[in-house]
Each structure stands twice: as structure tokens, then as C-alpha cells.
């Protein structure tokens, strides 16, 4: 479900802005680090979970406003280089601020321990994450499908010129889309922190996963992102149970296998 969330954010950014966002993983990592810092500062996990992703969204806002905005006319190669440079700056910045060694972080007391589901024993926090991620995906879906601005956003994925001809400020739409994508990356990062701990490489590891989700699910395709996220999440879990070392490689192997059979991705859009 976290993969779906990550892919969804990237999917929005790539789909609407038409840029390869290599900084998406870095935003994810910032979300995790901000969460831990905020918890340490104010001592309240719930408030931190709200604040950290907003911080990431603001960072996304600043990045779009100061840099990416100037690059829509440039080619993908320069956009890529820019976001890649940003990713390097952010991950090195994380090392400078928080140090190169990762640390583990415990979920809040209320969510520690497990629940007996009858057939299996499952950690409470993971259930919580699944619930929150599910709600967020649902909320994003409702926003995109049922609100006016969501409709404009989907129109922006289809045809940018037409949208701006209709008198809609396409640049503001881009900024909002980038901030929303950054928010989703940030909250995915924040939710991940208590499960896997945090380290400076977490962003890069997740970036590859997000790309896989988008490549399989299709740009701006919400259902595709969810399906692809679930598919690789399950595949990874199954492989991890038998052969732990190969679990990360399994994500990419599954992608390669799916693309061999269906080069156009799961739902074959564009």
C-alpha cells in the first residue's frame, strides 16, 4: 500500500508536469527524517504525522516555484539532470544534518505489539499504516474524480494547451500537483519510518520502486498505481519469505517479467 502511495504521488507529478522527477525518493526520505525530528521535538507522534508531510509539501512547493517552473520548455534530459541534482543535494543534506548512520525508530506506544487476526498474528502498526495509506489513496481518488479541481487536474494530464486555453492558470495547477505529489511522498516516508527505520539511502531505494509502479501502472492512472503497488508489494513479501537477499531485486524482476508479457504495462495506456 505504501508503494501505491509513493507511485501515486510520482504518477501525479510525472503525468501532469511531464517531467521525470528523480527527487521523488529524496522527498520520501525527508518525510521520514522530518517525522522523527518533529516527534523528538514536540513528543507527539500524531501531530508530527500531520506536520511532517506538510513540511515536505512546502519543500516541493519551493522546488517547483524556484526551479522546475523554468524548465518546462527544456528537454527531458535537463529536467532529469535538475531533479537528479536536487536528489543529490537533499540526500547529502540529510547526511550533513542527521549523520550518515541510519537509526531505527519505534512506533508510538498505542500502536506497538500485534493483533491476533485468527489465522495470523499481525503487528498493529502495519495495520495502521495500511489503513492510513488506504484512506489517503481513497481521498486522492475522491479529489481527482469528484471535485472540480481534480477534474481540471485530470484534464491537465490529457491536454495542457486545451486546459490553459480554457482560462485556467496551468502554472498554478502544476505547482499544486507537485506539492500534492510531494505531500504523498512525504507521508509515505513518515509512515515508513517506524517500520524500516531511517537511513540516508532510503530515498534512492524507494525511487526505483516508485518508477516501477508508474511504469507498470501508467502515468496519472490511479487504479494502475494501486494495482502495481499491490502487485510488487506482494511479490516482494513472497520472495522475502523464501529468499531474503533477493527481495529488493524481486521488485525489478517482477517489473521486467510483466513488461516482457505486456510491454504497454498493466493497463496499457500510452
Amino acid at each position, binding site marked *: 500500500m505504501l508503494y501505491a502511495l509513493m507511485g501515486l504521488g510520482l504518477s501525479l507529478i510525472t503525468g501532469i508536469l511531464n517531467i521525470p522527477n528523480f527527487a521523488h525518493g529524496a522527498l520520501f526520505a525527508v518525510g521520514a527524517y522530518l517525522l522523527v525530528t518533529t516527534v523528538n521535538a514536540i513528543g507527539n507522534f500524531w501531530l508530527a504525522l500531520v506536520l511532517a508531510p506538510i513540511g515536505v509539501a512546502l519543500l516541493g512547493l519551493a522546488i517547483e516555484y524556484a526551479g522546475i517552473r523554468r524548465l518546462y520548455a527544456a528537454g527531458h534530459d*535537463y529536467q*532529469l539532470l535538475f531533479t*537528479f*541534482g536536487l536528489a543529490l*543535494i537533499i540526500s547529502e543534506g540529510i547526511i550533513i544534518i542527521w549523520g550518515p548512520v541510519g537509526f531505527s525508530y519505534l512506533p508510538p506506544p498505542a500502536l506497538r505489539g500485534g493483533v491476533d487476526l485468527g489465522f495470523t498474528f499481525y503487528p498493529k502498526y502495519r495495520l495502521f499504516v495500511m489503513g492510513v495509506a488506504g484512506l489517503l489513496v481513497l481521498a486522492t481518488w475522491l479529489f481527482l474524480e469528484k471535485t472540480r479541481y481534480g477534474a481540471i487536474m485530470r484534464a491537465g494530464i490529457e491536454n495542457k494547451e486545451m486546459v490553459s486555453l480554457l482560462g485556467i492558470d496551468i502554472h498554478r495547477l502544476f505547482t499544486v500537483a507537485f506539492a500534492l505529489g510531494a505531500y504523498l511522498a512525504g507521508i509515505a516516508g513518515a509512515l515508513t519510518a517506524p517500520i524500516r527505520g531511517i537511513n540516508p539511502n532510503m530515498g534512492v531505494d524507494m525511487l526505483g520502486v516508485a518508477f516501477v509502479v508508474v511504469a507498470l501502472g501508467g502515468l496519472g492512472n490511479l487504479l494502475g498505481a494501486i494495482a502495481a503497488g499491490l502487485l510488487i508489494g506482494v511479490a516482494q513479501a513472497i520472495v522475502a519469505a523464501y529468499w531474503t537477499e533477493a527481495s*529488493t531485486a524481486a521488485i525489478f524482476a517482477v517489473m521486467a517479467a510483466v513488461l516482457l508479457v505486456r510491454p504497454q504495462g498493466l493497463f496499457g495506456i500510452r
Partner: protein
Amino acid sequence: MKHLIVFVLVAVALLLFAVCPVIATEIWIFAIFGLGLNLLLGYTGLLSFGQSTFFGSAAYVAGWLLKHYAINAFFALAIGVAVGAVSAALVGYLCVQRSGLYFIMLTFALNQLFYFIAYQWTSVTGGEDGMPGIPRPALLGIDFTDPLNYYVFIALLFLASLWVMKRIVESPLGKILQAIRENEVRAEAVGYSVPRFKLLAFVIGGAFSGLAGVLYAMLFGIVPLEAIGFVFSGNVVFATLIGGSGSLYGPIIGSIVFIWLSESVSVIWARWPLLLGVAFVIVVLFFRGGVVEAWSRFWSWQSSRPRT
């Protein structure tokens, strides 16, 4: 064209004196790597963000054989080229079926696949510590452990690669690739199988990357995990772009600037990737035409200044 070749020859010779042999050698290796990418990026219009897949795979395979079976240098180079080409064929087959952003993301994702294999397969690759102890075998009685001899060997190989690449881009194949870059639909309509030619460009680019990978492993005696990592892929894209991806010589200039700068800065500060990132951002925002354009802009600014 003629004087550019003379220029390159002179540069090859001079560079040795300007910087120490190891860095100079690294520059030409990186330039071979850049030539391979440039065939994709500059001539076919394919932005591959996974070139280190081929570079690293070749370095690992040839390095392994050099280390455990003491194969000779020519054989190692041939293996490197072959591994580069084969891995590029595998990756390329999946990637060329998609275009635009999907293509970039796929090259990156498959790069990550190879990276994690290298990372986890510690019994062979050494994982995070890299694969050390790769020998530099003598060839035809010449001792390559002497840095100067090795430098000359690399410089000659680089010139050979440059010549081969020049022949490729000026051949009918090169023209077809450029036609694909300019207008894919029209190239298809004229009767060329676009995916097949893209794949071919991928394989050739991969072969060049593989050659560079083996030379790199032999230069440092180790295959570090970074050699197959995505930052390495990004670096070669950056070097090619700052040199100017449109021309055959762009990646060469880019490699000189890039390796020289990064090697000098990395000695000073361990967090130098931060500066690298800043450099990427600045170049993209302000000097989008690369070094060549920045230079000409600087000159026009100089000459437009009123003389006092």
C-alpha cells in the same frame, strides 16, 4: 573535422602533463563511456539513465575472470565488450518498447535491478566493499602496471573508439539513428523498424560502456559497487550534457571537465556529491548549452564590453 582530430590528439598528449596519469587515464575511460551514451542521447535521442548497468556488469564479469583465471588483457577487453553488448541487448529489449518518460524510468529501474544483484551477491561481487584485487596483466611484453604505459594504452584505445564511433555516426546506420531522433514517426513511415534500430544503438552503446568498464576495473584494481550504481549513470549523462550532446566531441570535453573537477573536489571534501548536485542545478538553470556554449557566450560578453 580534420583539425578537431588534431586537437584531440594534442589534448590526449597534453593532458598527461596537466594532471597526474591516473586521473588522465580515468578521463579517457570516462570519455569512452560518454561516447557510448552519446550515440543514444545525442544521435538517437534516447535518454538512457542506466548506462552504468553495462559498465558495471562488464567490469564485474571481466574483473572476476581476470582475478580468478588470469586471462590476458585482450581477452578481458573482448569479454567486457561482449558483456556490455549482451546486457544492453537485454535491457534495451524491454526499454525500446516504450518511449519518453517511461523509457527513462525503465532504464533507471533496470539499473537498480542490476545494482541490487551486485549488492546482494556478496560472494562474487563483494557487495558494498567492492571486488578488489583485479590484476593488470602485461600485453605483448609491455608492463601495464607502470601508470605511464597504461595511460598510453588507454589513450590509444580511446582514439580507436573515437574513430569507430565517428565511422558509425557517419555511416548509413548513423543517419538512420539521427532520422529517428528528428522524427520517429517519419522514420517508421519511410520503412525503418524503429525499435530494432533503437535496440542496435543500445547494443553499440553498451559495448562501448562495457569496454570502459573493464578498463576502469583494471585501472583501479577494484570494481566498487558505485560502478553499477545510478549515480554513475547520472554522472555520464551530466558529463555528456555539459560537453554538449549534439556533437561527437561533446562527451570528450565533458569528461575532461567532469573528472578533473570531481577528482579535485572529492579530495577536499567527503560530501562532494552535494557540490555535484549544486553544479547540476546551476548548469541546468543557467548554462543549458554546455561548456561550449558558455565559452562562446563568455567571449561575446568579453568583446561587447567597452574597452577603456
